[in-house]
């Protein structure tokens, strides 16, 4: 088995890696791991006053610090019934635009673009794209400047507090921000054209669900009190858990999210998919010009969507500043009493939906929950990497897998990553399934379920194997029909892994045994036929996460009860291995 892995994702916020394992002609594993240690921020927030948490929780991330600041402020103000004056609201929006511009321009030009124009990094790219590299840095600097003016410093500014700001920017500061926004416009247009017309590879391509904040009033925007899905469904902010359903996977300290058992995507592409038709003016025109069906299925268009959002921000800033300047008085901090209650704050960080939730009891935070965009995207990052890797493997282009996975991970602009620098392909050793099966057994004893049709030759492999295991006295082995009759078996397994035994067409030599995680099967419908309805109807997402298929390559699935000799040998091999 080969493993393609990017051990340290470079040019990133934090520490993570991506790896794909290849066994013959199948990708048997894709893992997006975060090595970043646990900081327990959600627990640090407990026992603190709301004011202290406004200062502490944004320190989760230096790049998205102001998104976290806006999220915690919105959550606390919802919990404490604080309504900020209009000027404060508008200044916070301006502050958020600064972060969007800073983050997006850094990502599209410095981290994403070098891949598409054939350079290893932005500095090397400068030989051909000198103007772009220089002005993009100016643009990033401009975003930083807005953040500094409004929050107090580049990173972890303390000026925004519950009920307003400690101090306000001067009229000159604001006019400067407006003037610069107008100056940048020609370059901003160039940016949109460049990234919307880039030649994005066709793979990976697959449908997904998109989620973002609903800004209300049929407007585009970066926060709201509801979540909207690309299906049109909406959730109130306090019901965010029906979307996120967080759970833990053993290879990462970042939690995962699935909606109704399926991965979903957040970020600029999600926003453009859900809200793009609300864009007006130049951004609206560009949306109409460039948006097409590929934006709905190909995650690489995150880059194009970010470029479109840069234009939206630069158009919005002069309007915002004019509105702010109309309100001459600087409002004092809104007075409030700390009371018991809950509050949720929804914000669109540059890389997607960010949720902060706090429960306040006796003046202190009693419970907190923070759901970050990268945690929500992790499942789709793995899924799209798998789709891309398997497709390239099918086309015989294994050498391209590493770069393509990096491209996919980077497109999502994950906080921990952006650019991967140490990709390697890991090939599975002979009989890799034995080692991995052993590892599964070591954590918890699995449940085996045999599936198949004994009237169709090798298709009966799973059933025959299960019967033999039963006879040999292996505990917890079931047949397909036993599960259909009594689905309690699947329900009461108390976190034990489930291993399906089946004939699995993975284009190998007959009799080849492979152990595949179930989550990968769901992304590769060509592999198995019978198992899909069974797992999608009867198993929840955590069971799928801890589920596997132990498959044998069939030789023939013509009618007849005979099993081919090669498959028969594989069955005996598994039986021998498990009874030892």
């Amino acid at each position, binding site marked *: 088995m080969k493993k393609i892995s990017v051990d*340290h994702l470079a040019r990133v916020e*934090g520490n993570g890696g991506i790896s794909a394992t290849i066994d013959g002609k199948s990708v048997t594993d894709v893992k997006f791991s975060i090595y970043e240690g646990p900081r327990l*921020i959600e627990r640090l927030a407990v026992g603190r006053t709301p004011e202290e948490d406004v200062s502490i929780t944004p*320190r989760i991330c*230096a790049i998205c610090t102001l998104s976290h600041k806006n999220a915690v402020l919105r959550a606390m103000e919802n919990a404490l019934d604080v309504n900020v004056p209009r000027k404060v609201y508008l200044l916070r929006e301006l502050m958020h635009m600064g972060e969007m511009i800073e983050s997006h321009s850094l990502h599209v030009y410095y981290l994403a673009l070098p891949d598409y124009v054939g350079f290893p990094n932005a500095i090397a790219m400068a030989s051909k794209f000198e103007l772009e590299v220089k002005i993009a840095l100016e643009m990033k600097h401009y975003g930083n400047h807005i953040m500094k003016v409004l929050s107090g410093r580049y*990173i972890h500014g303390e000026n925004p507090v519950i009920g307003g700001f*400690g101090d306000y920017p001067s009229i000159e500061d604001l006019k400067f921000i407006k003037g610069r926004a107008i100056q940048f416009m020609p370059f901003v247009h160039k940016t949109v054209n460049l990234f919307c017309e880039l030649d994005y590879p066709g793979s990976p391509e697959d449908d997904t669900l998109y989620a973002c904040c609903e800004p209300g009033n049929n407007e585009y925007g970066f926060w709201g009190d509801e979540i909207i899905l690309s299906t049109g469904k909406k959730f109130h902010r306090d019901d965010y858990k029906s979307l996120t359903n967080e759970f833990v996977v053993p290879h990462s300290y970042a939690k995962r999210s699935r909606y109704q058992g399926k991965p979903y995507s957040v970020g600029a592409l999600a926003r453009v998919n859900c809200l793009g038709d609300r864009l007006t003016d130049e951004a609206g025109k560009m949306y109409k010009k460039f948006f097409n069906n590929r934006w709905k299925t190909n995650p690489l268009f995150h880059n194009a969507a970010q470029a479109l959002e840069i234009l939206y921000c630069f158009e919005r800033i002069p309007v915002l500043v004019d509105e702010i300047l109309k309100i001459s008085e600087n409002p004092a901090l809104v007075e409030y009493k700390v009371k018991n209650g809950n509050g949720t704050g929804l914000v669109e960080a540059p890389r997607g939906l960010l949720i902060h939730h706090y429960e306040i009891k006796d003046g202190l935070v009693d419970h907190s929950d923070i759901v970050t965009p990268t945690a929500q995207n992790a499942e789709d990052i793995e899924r799209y990497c798998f789709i891309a890797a398997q497709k390239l493997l099918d086309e015989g282009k294994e050498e391209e897998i590493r770069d393509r996975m990096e491209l996919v991970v980077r497109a999502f602009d994950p906080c921990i990553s952006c650019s991967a620098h140490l990709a390697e392909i890991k090939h599975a050793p002979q009989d890799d399934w034995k080692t991995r099966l052993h590892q599964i057994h070591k954590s918890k004893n699995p449940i085996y379920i045999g599936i198949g049709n004994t009237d169709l030759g090798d298709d009966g492999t799973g059933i025959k194997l299960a019967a033999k295991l039963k006879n040999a006295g292996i505990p917890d082995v079931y047949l397909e029909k036993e599960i259909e009759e009594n689905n309690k078996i699947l329900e009461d397994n108390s976190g034990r892994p489930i291993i399906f035994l089946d004939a699995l067409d993975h284009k190998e030599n007959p009799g080849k045994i492979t152990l595949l995680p179930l989550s990968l099967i769901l992304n590769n419908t060509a592999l198995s036929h019978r198992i899909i309805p069974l797992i999608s109807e009867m198993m929840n997402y955590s069971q799928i996460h801890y589920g596997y298929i132990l498959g044998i390559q069939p030789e023939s699935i013509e009618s007849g009860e005979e099993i081919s000799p090669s498959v028969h040998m594989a069955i005996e091999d598994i039986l021998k291995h498990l009874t030892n």
Partner: protein
Amino acid sequence: MKKDKLKIGIYELTGCAGDALLILDCEKELIDIFNAVNIQSFLMANSANIDEELDVALVEGSVTTEREIEELKDIRKRAKVVVAIGLCATAGGIQARFTDKKEWEKNLREVYGDVEMTHTKAVQSKPIDAYIDVDFYLPGCPISKEQFLHLFNRIVKGAPPEHYPQPVCVTCKFNENDCLLNQGKLCLGPITADGCGSICPNYNLPCVGCWGPLEEANRRSEYYLLQEKGFDIEEIKKKMANYSGTKLADFFSQIKKEKR
């Protein structure tokens, strides 16, 4: 010429990466920084990183996994000088609040349940000097550009960096701010290391202590002074612990003894 340049590595352990980001945000000086020394390893900025002998290692972040302990010990072995940059590396950062092992374990379970991690085991968050000898400290959450450039200049010239033995109040007075403690606001300026430019008081906000504790400060006296001013004892303790958990643990046990 090139071979005479100092070999420098910049490393990120667990934290928000804000200190590495701040170095990148030194936009105008960045090219000079990269020209003045040989940057051998800087994951956030660079794709090809070399792990060999170093003159200076700048380490950001606190230690929270076994993998990081190994990484850190390896860095120490390779580097002649190790500088802790940022509050997480110097004092443990906000994540070092759970100073009691049992309390930390309980909270880890609350967040991650009983899932056994396969990639690396978590350990209680600690500053890097809990595991290796540290030559110099540059605190701040995040570090300030000015202090970083001062330190960097000195190191490049082979001189030890300057020590800042004063609290935030010194700069705050230079900035002619009205003392917030006199206004009845719980400000940690007097016990917090200087370097931020008294940014919070400049914005009429009390110092939260994000530079970590100042060694030379009379913490005991400040603690009792705040108490005299009528602030709630628990609140003072909590505020002081927010940004300097590990470093203040001894102080708290001393206070506890005095109370008995």
